[in-house]
């Protein structure tokens, strides 16, 4: 009996360790994570509009129904990526995510002071190269640097009601993602 009581303490310590291990591993291992969804549903550099058809009813019901969005998956190992969209949306915002689903960059229409959106995602090394050759591309666009080569960018456009549907759809339809080399 006493042996079992002595076993309780290491058992609880072990439980704490396993608990923490699971908590820390979930972002990389969860099948339901946003990155896992992107990796399985989106082709690299192919814009994906997040309609109920594309994401499934379960995910769609959790979205803000007055916001439309699209995303683009990227892989920087072959070069930097440029994303742009044009439109007359009331409000748009953009965020770039790494493979743990954390946003390493975000911006919106007011911060950028532009109806259109022009973003370059690149690694620090690629930025160095671009600066060395004085690339004009990095002057016009907003820059998001990351050391993680894989990730995705999500564009959100506010659509307060049906009268804004055309504007929001147009902006999402113009979303382009392409690889660039400086």
């Amino acid at each position, binding site marked *: 009996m006493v*042996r*079992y009581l*002595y*076993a*309780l303490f*290491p*058992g*609880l*310590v*072990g*439980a*704490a*360790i*396993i*608990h*923490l*291990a*699971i*908590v*820390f591993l*979930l*972002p990389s*291992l*969860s099948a*339901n*994570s*946003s990155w*896992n*969804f992107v990796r399985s549903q989106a082709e690299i550099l192919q814009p994906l509009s997040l309609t109920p058809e594309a994401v499934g009813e379960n995910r769609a*019901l*959790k*979205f*803000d*129904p*007055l916001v439309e*969005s699209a995303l683009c998956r990227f892989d920087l190992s072959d070069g930097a990526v440029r994303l742009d969209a044009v439109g007359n949306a*009331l*409000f748009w*915002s*953009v*965020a*770039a*995510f790494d493979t*743990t*689903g*954390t*946003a*390493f*960059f*975000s*911006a*919106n*229409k*007011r*911060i950028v002071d532009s109806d259109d959106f022009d973003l370059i995602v690149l690694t620090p090394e690629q930025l160095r190269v671009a600066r060395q050759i004085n690339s004009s591309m990095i002057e016009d666009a907003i820059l998001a640097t990351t050391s993680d080569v894989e990730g995705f960018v*999500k564009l*959100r456009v*506010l659509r*307060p*009601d049906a009268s804004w549907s055309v504007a929001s759809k147009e902006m999402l339809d113009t979303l382009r993602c392409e690889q660039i080399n400086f």
Partner: protein
Amino acid sequence: MNRILPFLFALAIALAGGIYSADLVTKEFEGFAALRIGQWVAYPQSGSDNADPYARAYYARTGQFVLGSAEGVAFIADDDATGDQLVANCDYVISGETPAARSWTLRITDERSNTIRNPSSQLAAIASENVLRDQDSGFSITVSNRTKSGNWLNPGDAGVRRLILTLYDTSVASTTGISEIEMPSIEKLGCHDG
């Protein structure tokens, strides 16, 4: 055998306890960085590098796309001002002010944050652009499954409800004094069967 059994006992506690507690917590607990104002609670750090491990684990399980800090902050309310859970067969008025933001949306969901779908075009969501204002630029929005005039949202037939107020382009998370942040109040007007 006598030596092995206590060891197996400890191992069983470790595995069962660790897995069960991790599962339970990461299903419900959205992390430590809650920002609570009145009935509303938000997790402004959810998208950022500052998110704690429990927040990250929670989002990995729910699979939601978090809001970047320059995008916005989502506030959730499950109770009215008296602490009673929000339900579809009670009427409420949401009134007052919101923190400064470029725009905001208010939607009614079930307790799992799924937006309520009503028949015809009775939306369960409204954007700040479409909210009729009072003379002092405050607002009130009625939540009821009976038709109302003015700003009105239909919560559907029956069940537990939740309100999600999403502020877009806001600095609410970096406001230093919590007492300066004003969120709308949620007052219950009355209830009816169905």
